[in-house]
Protein backbone atom coordinates (compact mmCIF):
# COMPACT_ATOMS: atom_id res chain seq x y z
CA UNK A 1 0.00 0.00 0.00
CA UNK A 2 1.28 3.47 -0.82
CA UNK A 3 0.29 6.61 1.03
CA UNK A 4 0.72 10.19 -0.06
CA UNK A 5 2.64 12.10 2.55
CA UNK A 6 2.39 15.84 3.15
CA UNK A 7 5.65 17.73 2.73
CA UNK A 8 7.43 18.94 5.84
CA UNK A 9 7.81 17.07 9.10
CA UNK A 10 5.86 13.89 9.78
CA UNK A 11 5.70 12.33 13.24
CA UNK A 12 4.30 8.89 14.10
CA UNK A 13 3.40 8.43 17.77
CA UNK A 14 1.21 6.49 20.17
CA UNK A 15 -0.18 7.52 23.53
CA UNK A 16 0.86 4.24 25.09
CA UNK A 17 4.55 5.16 24.63
CA UNK A 18 6.20 7.18 27.46
CA UNK A 19 8.74 8.68 25.03
CA UNK A 20 5.92 9.86 22.77
CA UNK A 21 4.22 11.50 25.75
CA UNK A 22 7.58 13.03 26.64
CA UNK A 23 7.96 14.63 23.21
CA UNK A 24 4.35 15.82 23.01
CA UNK A 25 5.41 19.31 24.19
CA UNK A 26 8.17 19.29 21.55
CA UNK A 27 5.61 18.58 18.85
CA UNK A 28 3.42 21.37 20.30
CA UNK A 29 6.42 23.68 20.13
CA UNK A 30 7.06 22.82 16.47
CA UNK A 31 3.37 23.30 15.66
CA UNK A 32 3.38 26.72 17.37
CA UNK A 33 6.26 27.82 15.16
CA UNK A 34 4.04 27.14 12.14
CA UNK A 35 6.44 24.52 10.85
CA UNK A 36 4.68 22.15 8.43
CA UNK A 37 4.06 19.22 10.77
CA UNK A 38 1.72 16.24 10.39
CA UNK A 39 1.25 13.86 13.33
CA UNK A 40 -0.07 10.30 12.93
CA UNK A 41 -1.36 8.63 16.07
CA UNK A 42 -1.30 4.83 16.18
CA UNK A 43 -3.52 4.18 19.16
CA UNK A 44 -5.49 7.25 20.20
CA UNK A 45 -6.76 9.66 17.57
CA UNK A 46 -6.80 12.49 20.13
CA UNK A 47 -3.12 12.16 21.04
CA UNK A 48 -1.19 14.45 21.35
CA UNK A 49 -4.02 16.54 22.77
CA UNK A 50 -4.78 19.71 20.88
CA UNK A 51 -2.41 19.00 17.99
CA UNK A 52 -5.01 17.64 15.59
CA UNK A 53 -3.31 14.32 14.93
CA UNK A 54 -4.28 12.15 11.99
CA UNK A 55 -5.98 8.90 12.98
CA UNK A 56 -3.74 5.98 12.05
CA UNK A 57 -5.27 3.43 14.41
CA UNK A 58 -5.81 1.23 11.34
CA UNK A 59 -2.02 1.54 10.89
CA UNK A 60 -2.20 1.96 7.13
CA UNK A 61 0.32 4.81 7.19
CA UNK A 62 2.52 3.14 9.79
CA UNK A 63 2.71 -0.05 7.75
CA UNK A 64 3.32 1.87 4.53
CA UNK A 65 6.17 3.75 6.20
CA UNK A 66 7.48 0.56 7.79
CA UNK A 67 7.57 2.29 11.16
CA UNK A 68 9.61 0.25 13.60
CA UNK A 69 9.76 2.56 16.62
CA UNK A 70 7.69 5.45 17.94
CA UNK A 71 8.20 8.30 17.98
CA UNK A 72 9.43 8.36 14.40
CA UNK A 73 10.11 11.72 12.82
CA UNK A 74 10.40 12.04 9.05
CA UNK A 75 11.30 14.77 6.67
CA UNK A 76 9.19 14.65 3.51
CA UNK A 77 10.02 16.54 0.32
CA UNK A 78 7.91 16.33 -2.82
CA UNK A 79 5.92 13.54 -1.20
CA UNK A 80 8.97 11.40 -0.51
CA UNK A 81 10.71 10.63 2.75
CA UNK A 82 14.21 12.11 2.72
CA UNK A 83 15.31 11.60 6.32
CA UNK A 84 14.17 9.73 9.47
CA UNK A 85 14.79 9.83 13.22
CA UNK A 86 13.53 7.37 15.83
CA UNK A 87 13.15 7.89 19.57
CA UNK A 88 13.97 11.21 21.21
CA UNK A 89 17.40 12.82 20.94
CA UNK A 90 17.75 16.57 21.32
CA UNK A 91 21.09 16.37 19.59
CA UNK A 92 19.43 14.90 16.51
CA UNK A 93 16.02 16.58 16.65
CA UNK A 94 17.39 20.14 16.92
CA UNK A 95 19.29 20.17 13.61
CA UNK A 96 16.61 18.01 11.98
CA UNK A 97 13.93 20.61 12.73
CA UNK A 98 16.14 23.67 12.71
CA UNK A 99 14.97 24.61 16.22
CA UNK A 100 18.12 24.84 18.36
CA UNK A 101 16.46 25.12 21.77
CA UNK A 102 14.01 22.24 21.12
CA UNK A 103 12.94 20.31 24.23
CA UNK A 104 14.98 22.39 26.58
CA UNK A 105 13.42 20.89 29.70
CA UNK A 106 13.65 17.28 28.55
CA UNK A 107 16.36 14.71 29.13
CA UNK A 108 18.84 14.70 26.27
CA UNK A 109 17.63 11.43 24.85
CA UNK A 110 15.17 8.59 25.39
CA UNK A 111 14.79 5.44 23.29
CA UNK A 112 11.42 5.03 21.66
CA UNK A 113 8.89 2.23 21.99
CA UNK A 114 7.90 -0.53 19.61
CA UNK A 115 5.50 0.50 16.89
CA UNK A 116 1.99 -0.95 17.17
CA UNK A 117 2.65 -2.57 13.83
CA UNK A 118 4.72 -5.13 15.75
CA UNK A 119 1.80 -6.22 17.91
CA UNK A 120 1.62 -9.92 16.95
CA UNK A 121 -2.15 -10.10 17.26
CA UNK A 122 -2.54 -7.03 15.10
CA UNK A 123 -0.08 -8.28 12.52
CA UNK A 124 -1.99 -11.57 12.34
CA UNK A 125 -5.29 -9.74 12.01
CA UNK A 126 -3.94 -7.56 9.21
CA UNK A 127 -2.51 -10.59 7.45
CA UNK A 128 -5.87 -12.31 7.81
CA UNK A 129 -7.64 -9.27 6.43
CA UNK A 130 -5.24 -9.16 3.49
CA UNK A 131 -5.68 -12.89 2.90
CA UNK A 132 -9.41 -12.55 3.37
CA UNK A 133 -9.54 -9.93 0.66
CA UNK A 134 -8.09 -12.49 -1.75
CA UNK A 135 -10.81 -15.07 -1.16
CA UNK A 136 -13.21 -15.80 -3.99
CA UNK A 137 -16.52 -16.37 -2.22
CA UNK A 138 -19.32 -13.89 -2.74
CA UNK A 139 -19.39 -11.16 -0.09
CA UNK A 140 -22.63 -10.88 1.79
CA UNK A 141 -23.05 -7.58 3.59
CA UNK A 142 -25.19 -7.79 6.69
CA UNK A 143 -27.72 -5.05 7.24
CA UNK A 144 -27.03 -2.45 9.93
CA UNK A 145 -30.02 -3.55 11.97
CA UNK A 146 -29.36 -7.27 11.55
CA UNK A 147 -28.06 -9.40 14.40
CA UNK A 148 -25.13 -11.45 13.09
CA UNK A 149 -26.35 -14.76 14.49
CA UNK A 150 -29.93 -14.15 13.39
CA UNK A 151 -28.70 -13.21 9.92
CA UNK A 152 -27.15 -16.67 9.52
CA UNK A 153 -30.45 -18.32 10.43
CA UNK A 154 -32.46 -16.08 8.15
CA UNK A 155 -30.31 -16.94 5.16
CA UNK A 156 -30.87 -20.65 5.76
CA UNK A 157 -27.21 -21.39 6.44
CA UNK A 158 -27.46 -23.17 9.76
CA UNK A 159 -28.33 -26.66 10.94
CA UNK A 160 -30.70 -25.21 13.51
CA UNK A 161 -27.99 -24.21 15.96
CA UNK A 162 -26.20 -20.85 15.85
CA UNK A 163 -23.09 -20.66 13.65
CA UNK A 164 -19.99 -18.47 13.77
CA UNK A 165 -20.36 -15.76 11.09
CA UNK A 166 -17.76 -16.58 8.40
CA UNK A 167 -15.99 -13.24 8.04
CA UNK A 168 -13.17 -13.11 5.48
CA UNK A 169 -10.66 -12.75 8.35
CA UNK A 170 -11.92 -15.86 10.14
CA UNK A 171 -11.92 -17.89 6.95
CA UNK A 172 -8.39 -16.72 6.13
CA UNK A 173 -7.20 -17.71 9.61
CA UNK A 174 -8.80 -21.13 9.26
CA UNK A 175 -7.14 -21.63 5.89
CA UNK A 176 -3.78 -21.33 7.63
CA UNK A 177 -4.54 -24.84 8.89
CA UNK A 178 -3.88 -26.36 5.48
CA UNK A 179 -1.15 -26.09 2.87
CA UNK A 180 -3.71 -26.51 0.11
CA UNK A 181 -4.69 -23.62 -2.14
CA UNK A 182 -8.04 -22.04 -1.30
CA UNK A 183 -9.22 -22.47 -4.89
CA UNK A 184 -8.34 -26.15 -5.11
CA UNK A 185 -11.37 -28.37 -5.71
CA UNK A 186 -11.84 -30.85 -2.87
CA UNK A 187 -14.86 -32.75 -4.14
CA UNK A 188 -18.04 -32.46 -6.13
CA UNK A 189 -20.70 -32.25 -3.45
CA UNK A 190 -24.13 -33.83 -3.91
CA UNK A 191 -26.97 -33.38 -4.29
CA UNK A 192 -26.42 -30.28 -6.43
CA UNK A 193 -23.07 -31.68 -7.65
CA UNK A 194 -21.22 -28.45 -6.88
CA UNK A 195 -17.43 -28.41 -7.22
CA UNK A 196 -16.38 -27.46 -3.69
CA UNK A 197 -13.14 -25.57 -3.07
CA UNK A 198 -10.90 -25.71 -0.01
CA UNK A 199 -12.16 -22.19 0.67
CA UNK A 200 -15.83 -23.23 0.73
CA UNK A 201 -14.99 -26.04 3.13
CA UNK A 202 -13.19 -23.49 5.32
CA UNK A 203 -16.18 -21.11 5.25
CA UNK A 204 -18.42 -23.87 6.54
CA UNK A 205 -15.80 -25.07 9.02
CA UNK A 206 -15.65 -21.56 10.49
CA UNK A 207 -19.43 -21.62 10.83
CA UNK A 208 -19.26 -25.01 12.55
CA UNK A 209 -16.76 -23.62 15.08
CA UNK A 210 -13.59 -25.37 13.87
CA UNK A 211 -10.03 -24.38 14.73
CA UNK A 212 -7.49 -24.16 11.90
CA UNK A 213 -5.81 -27.42 12.91
CA UNK A 214 -9.09 -29.30 12.37
CA UNK A 215 -9.32 -28.23 8.74
CA UNK A 216 -7.27 -31.10 7.23
CA UNK A 217 -9.61 -33.56 9.00
CA UNK A 218 -12.68 -31.80 7.61
CA UNK A 219 -11.17 -31.75 4.11
CA UNK A 220 -10.45 -35.49 4.26
CA UNK A 221 -13.98 -36.13 5.55
CA UNK A 222 -15.54 -34.13 2.70
CA UNK A 223 -13.43 -35.99 0.16
CA UNK A 224 -14.33 -39.38 1.61
CA UNK A 225 -18.03 -38.52 1.86
CA UNK A 226 -18.23 -37.45 -1.78
CA UNK A 227 -16.87 -40.69 -3.23
CA UNK A 228 -19.15 -42.96 -5.22
CA UNK A 229 -18.53 -45.72 -2.66
CA UNK A 230 -19.75 -43.68 0.28
CA UNK A 231 -22.65 -42.21 -1.72
CA UNK A 232 -23.53 -39.21 0.44
CA UNK A 233 -26.26 -38.34 -2.06
CA UNK A 234 -28.20 -41.52 -1.38
CA UNK A 235 -27.43 -41.31 2.32
CA UNK A 236 -28.89 -37.83 2.39
CA UNK A 237 -31.95 -38.72 0.35
CA UNK A 238 -32.94 -41.87 2.19
CA UNK A 239 -35.94 -42.03 4.50
CA UNK A 240 -33.70 -44.03 6.86
CA UNK A 241 -32.13 -42.48 9.99
CA UNK A 242 -28.54 -42.41 8.87
CA UNK A 243 -26.03 -39.63 8.46
CA UNK A 244 -22.26 -39.50 8.02
CA UNK A 245 -20.18 -40.67 11.01
CA UNK A 246 -16.50 -39.63 10.99
CA UNK A 247 -14.13 -41.90 12.92
CA UNK A 248 -10.66 -40.36 13.27
CA UNK A 249 -7.53 -42.45 13.70
CA UNK A 250 -3.82 -41.83 14.04
CA UNK A 251 -1.60 -39.33 15.83
CA UNK A 252 -3.48 -36.28 14.53
CA UNK A 253 -6.55 -37.16 16.57
CA UNK A 254 -4.68 -36.64 19.82
CA UNK A 255 -2.68 -33.70 18.45
CA UNK A 256 -5.85 -31.71 17.87
CA UNK A 257 -7.37 -32.75 21.17
CA UNK A 258 -10.07 -35.13 20.03
CA UNK A 259 -11.95 -37.16 22.60
CA UNK A 260 -11.65 -40.96 22.48
CA UNK A 261 -12.35 -41.50 26.17
CA UNK A 262 -15.14 -40.60 28.58
CA UNK A 263 -18.27 -39.67 26.60
CA UNK A 264 -16.40 -40.17 23.30
CA UNK A 265 -19.65 -40.40 21.34
CA UNK A 266 -21.23 -37.53 23.23
CA UNK A 267 -21.01 -33.79 23.61
CA UNK A 268 -18.37 -31.51 25.07
CA UNK A 269 -15.27 -31.79 22.88
CA UNK A 270 -14.75 -29.02 20.37
CA UNK A 271 -12.91 -31.08 17.74
CA UNK A 272 -15.35 -33.99 17.84
CA UNK A 273 -18.33 -31.65 17.74
CA UNK A 274 -17.23 -29.22 15.06
CA UNK A 275 -15.55 -31.58 12.57
CA UNK A 276 -18.68 -33.66 12.18
CA UNK A 277 -20.78 -30.52 12.06
CA UNK A 278 -18.59 -28.92 9.40
CA UNK A 279 -19.08 -31.91 7.09
CA UNK A 280 -22.85 -31.66 7.49
CA UNK A 281 -22.79 -27.89 6.84
CA UNK A 282 -20.84 -28.48 3.62
CA UNK A 283 -23.49 -30.94 2.48
CA UNK A 284 -26.24 -28.48 3.45
CA UNK A 285 -24.77 -25.26 2.14
CA UNK A 286 -22.49 -26.24 -0.73
CA UNK A 287 -24.31 -29.38 -1.85
CA UNK A 288 -27.77 -27.97 -1.19
CA UNK A 289 -28.91 -31.02 0.79
CA UNK A 290 -31.52 -29.98 3.32
CA UNK A 291 -34.14 -31.73 5.42
CA UNK A 292 -37.44 -31.69 3.56
CA UNK A 293 -35.56 -31.03 0.33
CA UNK A 294 -33.38 -33.90 -0.80
CA UNK A 295 -33.05 -35.14 2.80
CA UNK A 296 -36.23 -37.21 3.18
CA UNK A 297 -35.48 -38.90 6.52
CA UNK A 298 -38.63 -40.14 8.23
CA UNK A 299 -37.21 -39.52 11.69
CA UNK A 300 -33.52 -38.72 11.33
CA UNK A 301 -31.33 -38.92 14.41
CA UNK A 302 -29.45 -36.39 16.59
CA UNK A 303 -26.10 -37.48 15.14
CA UNK A 304 -27.06 -35.68 11.95
CA UNK A 305 -26.03 -32.45 13.67
CA UNK A 306 -22.59 -33.93 14.16
CA UNK A 307 -21.19 -37.42 14.67
CA UNK A 308 -17.44 -37.69 14.99
CA UNK A 309 -15.10 -39.35 17.46
CA UNK A 310 -11.58 -40.71 17.70
CA UNK A 311 -10.55 -44.29 18.36
CA UNK A 312 -8.93 -44.95 21.73
CA UNK A 313 -5.70 -46.35 20.34
CA UNK A 314 -3.19 -46.03 23.17
CA UNK A 315 -4.51 -48.94 25.23
CA UNK A 316 -6.57 -50.75 22.63
CA UNK A 317 -6.40 -54.54 22.54
CA UNK A 318 -6.32 -54.30 18.74
CA UNK A 319 -4.77 -52.48 15.84
CA UNK A 320 -6.65 -49.27 15.06
CA UNK A 321 -9.37 -49.12 12.43
CA UNK A 322 -7.30 -47.35 9.77
CA UNK A 323 -4.63 -50.06 10.06
CA UNK A 324 -7.26 -52.80 9.70
CA UNK A 325 -8.33 -50.93 6.59
CA UNK A 326 -4.86 -50.92 5.08
CA UNK A 327 -3.13 -47.72 6.17
CA UNK A 328 0.11 -47.49 8.17
CA UNK A 329 -0.21 -46.89 11.91
CA UNK A 330 1.84 -43.70 11.60
CA UNK A 331 -0.74 -42.14 9.29
CA UNK A 332 -3.86 -40.31 10.38
CA UNK A 333 -7.14 -41.03 8.67
CA UNK A 334 -10.87 -40.58 8.65
CA UNK A 335 -13.29 -43.43 8.14
CA UNK A 336 -16.77 -42.44 6.99
CA UNK A 337 -19.69 -44.63 7.93
CA UNK A 338 -23.39 -44.23 7.10
CA UNK A 339 -24.58 -44.24 10.68
CA UNK A 340 -27.71 -44.52 12.71
CA UNK A 341 -27.46 -43.38 16.30
CA UNK A 342 -25.61 -45.63 18.75
CA UNK A 343 -27.46 -48.14 20.87
CA UNK A 344 -26.05 -49.60 24.05
CA UNK A 345 -25.01 -53.14 24.84
CA UNK A 346 -24.88 -54.03 28.51
CA UNK A 347 -22.98 -57.05 29.78
CA UNK A 348 -21.64 -56.71 33.28
CA UNK A 349 -21.24 -60.40 34.00
CA UNK A 350 -19.24 -61.90 31.13
CA UNK A 351 -15.63 -62.45 32.13
CA UNK A 352 -14.64 -64.70 29.25
CA UNK A 353 -14.44 -63.84 25.57
CA UNK A 354 -16.91 -66.51 24.43
CA UNK A 355 -19.67 -65.24 26.68
CA UNK A 356 -19.11 -61.63 25.71
CA UNK A 357 -19.02 -62.54 22.01
CA UNK A 358 -22.37 -64.28 22.52
CA UNK A 359 -23.77 -61.06 23.96
CA UNK A 360 -22.39 -58.97 21.10
CA UNK A 361 -23.81 -61.39 18.53
CA UNK A 362 -27.25 -61.44 20.13
CA UNK A 363 -27.39 -57.66 20.13
CA UNK A 364 -25.91 -57.29 16.64
CA UNK A 365 -28.54 -59.61 15.25
CA UNK A 366 -31.21 -57.04 16.11
CA UNK A 367 -29.52 -54.34 14.01
CA UNK A 368 -32.32 -52.84 11.88
CA UNK A 369 -34.38 -56.03 12.34
CA UNK A 370 -33.58 -59.50 13.70
CA UNK A 371 -35.04 -61.03 10.55
CA UNK A 372 -33.02 -59.04 8.01
CA UNK A 373 -29.57 -60.07 6.89
CA UNK A 374 -26.83 -58.80 4.59
CA UNK A 375 -28.58 -55.48 4.01
CA UNK A 376 -26.94 -53.22 6.60
CA UNK A 377 -23.41 -52.75 7.94
CA UNK A 378 -22.61 -51.88 11.55
CA UNK A 379 -19.85 -50.47 13.73
CA UNK A 380 -19.22 -52.19 17.04
CA UNK A 381 -17.69 -49.74 19.52
CA UNK A 382 -15.98 -51.78 22.22
CA UNK A 383 -15.29 -50.02 25.52
CA UNK A 384 -12.04 -50.46 27.46
CA UNK A 385 -13.59 -52.73 30.10
CA UNK A 386 -15.07 -55.00 27.45
CA UNK A 387 -11.88 -54.76 25.41
CA UNK A 388 -9.91 -56.02 28.40
CA UNK A 389 -11.85 -59.30 28.32
CA UNK A 390 -10.65 -59.96 24.76
CA UNK A 391 -7.11 -58.84 25.49
CA UNK A 392 -6.85 -61.23 28.42
CA UNK A 393 -8.25 -64.03 26.25
CA UNK A 394 -5.74 -63.20 23.52
CA UNK A 395 -8.42 -62.58 20.88
CA UNK A 396 -7.27 -60.50 17.95
CA UNK A 397 -9.74 -58.26 16.18
CA UNK A 398 -9.80 -60.74 13.28
CA UNK A 399 -10.61 -63.55 15.68
CA UNK A 400 -13.45 -61.60 17.29
CA UNK A 401 -14.87 -60.88 13.83
CA UNK A 402 -14.67 -64.59 12.95
CA UNK A 403 -16.33 -65.60 16.21
CA UNK A 404 -19.12 -63.06 15.70
CA UNK A 405 -19.61 -64.17 12.11
CA UNK A 406 -19.92 -67.77 13.28
CA UNK A 407 -22.58 -66.73 15.79
CA UNK A 408 -24.44 -64.64 13.22
CA UNK A 409 -25.15 -67.36 10.64
CA UNK A 410 -28.91 -67.10 10.49
CA UNK A 411 -31.21 -69.97 9.40
CA UNK A 412 -33.39 -68.90 6.49
CA UNK A 413 -36.44 -70.48 8.14
CA UNK A 414 -36.19 -67.83 10.86
CA UNK A 415 -35.85 -65.00 8.35
CA UNK A 416 -38.62 -65.59 5.84
CA UNK A 417 -41.68 -63.42 5.77
CA UNK A 418 -44.20 -64.59 8.34
CA UNK A 419 -41.70 -66.55 10.43
CA UNK A 420 -41.99 -65.83 14.12
CA UNK A 421 -45.37 -64.27 13.51
CA UNK A 422 -43.72 -61.27 11.85
CA UNK A 423 -44.60 -60.26 8.32
CA UNK A 424 -41.28 -58.47 7.81
CA UNK A 425 -38.52 -60.71 6.56
CA UNK A 426 -36.79 -62.12 3.52
CA UNK A 427 -38.42 -63.86 0.51
CA UNK A 428 -39.32 -67.54 0.77
CA UNK A 429 -36.38 -68.38 -1.49
CA UNK A 430 -34.02 -68.17 1.51
CA UNK A 431 -36.04 -70.74 3.52
CA UNK A 432 -33.41 -73.46 3.22
CA UNK A 433 -30.35 -71.23 3.20
CA UNK A 434 -28.14 -69.97 5.99
CA UNK A 435 -27.30 -66.28 5.71
CA UNK A 436 -24.71 -64.26 7.55
CA UNK A 437 -26.08 -61.17 9.32
CA UNK A 438 -23.34 -59.00 7.81
CA UNK A 439 -21.68 -59.04 4.44
CA UNK A 440 -17.95 -59.71 4.35
CA UNK A 441 -16.29 -56.53 5.70
CA UNK A 442 -19.65 -55.13 6.79
CA UNK A 443 -18.85 -55.13 10.50
CA UNK A 444 -16.26 -52.63 11.75
CA UNK A 445 -14.80 -52.77 15.26
CA UNK A 446 -13.32 -49.78 17.08
CA UNK A 447 -12.18 -49.21 20.66
CA UNK A 448 -13.40 -46.09 22.46
CA UNK A 449 -14.87 -44.79 25.65
CA UNK A 450 -14.12 -44.14 29.31
CA UNK A 451 -12.31 -46.60 31.54
CA UNK A 452 -15.33 -47.50 33.65
CA UNK A 453 -18.40 -49.26 32.35
CA UNK A 454 -19.02 -52.76 31.03
CA UNK A 455 -20.93 -51.32 28.09
CA UNK A 456 -20.29 -51.25 24.38
CA UNK A 457 -22.27 -49.78 21.50
CA UNK A 458 -23.63 -50.73 18.11
CA UNK A 459 -23.89 -48.09 15.45
CA UNK A 460 -26.15 -49.44 12.75
CA UNK A 461 -25.65 -48.55 9.10
CA UNK A 462 -27.70 -48.05 5.98
CA UNK A 463 -28.13 -50.07 2.79
CA UNK A 464 -24.71 -51.62 2.53
CA UNK A 465 -22.11 -51.97 -0.16
CA UNK A 466 -22.35 -51.13 -3.84
CA UNK A 467 -26.13 -50.84 -3.65
CA UNK A 468 -25.92 -48.21 -0.92
CA UNK A 469 -22.98 -46.98 1.08
CA UNK A 470 -19.68 -48.64 1.87
CA UNK A 471 -17.35 -47.34 4.60
CA UNK A 472 -14.56 -45.20 3.13
CA UNK A 473 -11.19 -44.62 4.79
CA UNK A 474 -9.06 -41.71 3.66
CA UNK A 475 -5.68 -40.56 4.86
CA UNK A 476 -5.62 -37.01 6.23
CA UNK A 477 -3.30 -34.74 4.27
CA UNK A 478 -1.68 -31.50 5.35
Amino acid at each position, binding site marked *: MTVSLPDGLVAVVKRDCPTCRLVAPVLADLRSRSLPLTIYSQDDPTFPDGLEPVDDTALDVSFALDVDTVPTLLRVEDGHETARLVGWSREQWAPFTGVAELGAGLPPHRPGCGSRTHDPDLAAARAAAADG*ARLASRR*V*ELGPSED*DAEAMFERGWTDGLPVVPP*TPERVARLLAGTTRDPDEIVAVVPPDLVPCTVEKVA*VNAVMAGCRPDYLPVVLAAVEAACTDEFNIHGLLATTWFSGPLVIVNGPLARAIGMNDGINALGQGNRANATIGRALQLVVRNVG*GGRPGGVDRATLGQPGKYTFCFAEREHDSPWEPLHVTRGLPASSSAVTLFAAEGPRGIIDQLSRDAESLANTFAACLRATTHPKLALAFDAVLVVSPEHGRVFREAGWSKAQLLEELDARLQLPGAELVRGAGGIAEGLPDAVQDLTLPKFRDGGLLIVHAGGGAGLFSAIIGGWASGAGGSAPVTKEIGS
Partner: protein
Amino acid sequence: MSDPRVVLDPTGERQAPVRERTPRPATLDGAAVGLLDITKARGDVFLDRLEEQLRDRGAKVLRFAKPTFTKVAPIDLRREIAEQCDVVIEALAD
Protein backbone atom coordinates in the same frame (compact mmCIF):
# COMPACT_ATOMS: atom_id res chain seq x y z
CA MET B 1 -9.39 -4.80 8.58
CA SER B 2 -12.34 -5.27 6.33
CA ASP B 3 -15.84 -4.56 7.52
CA PRO B 4 -16.71 -7.16 10.19
CA ARG B 5 -20.28 -7.00 8.96
CA VAL B 6 -19.30 -8.76 5.76
CA VAL B 7 -19.41 -12.55 5.64
CA LEU B 8 -18.53 -15.03 2.92
CA ASP B 9 -21.30 -16.93 1.20
CA PRO B 10 -21.09 -20.54 2.42
CA THR B 11 -23.25 -21.91 -0.40
CA GLY B 12 -22.33 -23.28 -3.79
CA GLU B 13 -23.39 -19.91 -5.25
CA ARG B 14 -25.34 -21.61 -7.98
CA GLN B 15 -28.55 -20.44 -9.52
CA ALA B 16 -30.84 -23.28 -10.45
CA PRO B 17 -31.33 -23.19 -14.21
CA VAL B 18 -34.92 -22.62 -15.26
CA ARG B 19 -36.04 -25.17 -17.79
CA GLU B 20 -39.20 -25.13 -19.82
CA ARG B 21 -41.51 -27.99 -19.02
CA THR B 22 -42.13 -30.39 -21.86
CA PRO B 23 -45.69 -29.76 -23.07
CA ARG B 24 -48.20 -32.18 -21.55
CA PRO B 25 -49.54 -34.63 -24.19
CA ALA B 26 -53.25 -34.16 -24.84
CA THR B 27 -53.76 -37.92 -24.90
CA LEU B 28 -51.83 -41.08 -24.11
CA ASP B 29 -53.23 -42.77 -27.23
CA GLY B 30 -50.27 -44.25 -29.01
CA ALA B 31 -47.84 -42.47 -26.67
CA ALA B 32 -44.73 -44.26 -25.48
CA VAL B 33 -44.96 -44.37 -21.68
CA GLY B 34 -41.85 -45.29 -19.74
CA LEU B 35 -42.24 -46.92 -16.34
CA LEU B 36 -39.13 -46.47 -14.22
CA ASP B 37 -38.70 -48.92 -11.37
CA ILE B 38 -36.23 -47.53 -8.84
CA THR B 39 -35.91 -51.11 -7.47
CA LYS B 40 -37.51 -50.40 -4.13
CA ALA B 41 -39.29 -53.43 -2.74
CA ARG B 42 -42.68 -54.03 -4.40
CA GLY B 43 -42.38 -51.04 -6.69
CA ASP B 44 -42.79 -53.61 -9.50
CA VAL B 45 -46.24 -54.57 -8.17
CA PHE B 46 -47.38 -50.99 -8.54
CA LEU B 47 -45.85 -50.63 -11.98
CA ASP B 48 -47.29 -53.93 -13.23
CA ARG B 49 -50.78 -52.65 -12.47
CA LEU B 50 -50.06 -49.31 -14.09
CA GLU B 51 -48.80 -51.10 -17.19
CA GLU B 52 -52.06 -53.05 -17.49
CA GLN B 53 -54.14 -49.92 -17.23
CA LEU B 54 -52.00 -47.96 -19.66
CA ARG B 55 -52.10 -50.72 -22.27
CA ASP B 56 -55.88 -50.82 -21.94
CA ARG B 57 -55.87 -47.13 -22.87
CA GLY B 58 -53.80 -47.74 -25.95
CA ALA B 59 -50.42 -46.59 -24.67
CA LYS B 60 -47.19 -48.25 -25.62
CA VAL B 61 -45.41 -49.16 -22.38
CA LEU B 62 -41.66 -49.52 -21.91
CA ARG B 63 -40.13 -50.71 -18.66
CA PHE B 64 -36.90 -49.42 -17.15
CA ALA B 65 -35.15 -50.02 -13.84
CA LYS B 66 -32.41 -48.27 -11.90
CA PRO B 67 -29.52 -50.52 -10.82
CA THR B 68 -30.08 -49.40 -7.20
CA PHE B 69 -32.58 -47.11 -5.52
CA THR B 70 -29.81 -45.54 -3.43
CA LYS B 71 -28.14 -43.73 -6.31
CA VAL B 72 -29.30 -41.42 -9.05
CA ALA B 73 -30.18 -43.06 -12.35
CA PRO B 74 -27.13 -43.50 -14.59
CA ILE B 75 -26.92 -40.92 -17.35
CA ASP B 76 -27.19 -43.56 -20.08
CA LEU B 77 -30.46 -44.79 -18.60
CA ARG B 78 -31.81 -41.25 -18.46
CA ARG B 79 -30.88 -40.67 -22.08
CA GLU B 80 -32.44 -43.96 -23.15
CA ILE B 81 -35.71 -43.01 -21.46
CA ALA B 82 -35.66 -39.52 -22.96
CA GLU B 83 -35.10 -40.90 -26.45
CA GLN B 84 -37.69 -43.66 -26.34
CA CYS B 85 -40.53 -42.20 -24.30
CA ASP B 86 -43.06 -39.40 -24.59
CA VAL B 87 -43.80 -39.52 -20.85
CA VAL B 88 -42.31 -41.38 -17.90
CA ILE B 89 -43.78 -42.54 -14.60
CA GLU B 90 -41.40 -43.23 -11.72
CA ALA B 91 -42.36 -45.53 -8.86
CA LEU B 92 -40.96 -44.33 -5.56
CA ALA B 93 -42.99 -46.45 -3.18
CA ASP B 94 -41.77 -49.08 -0.74
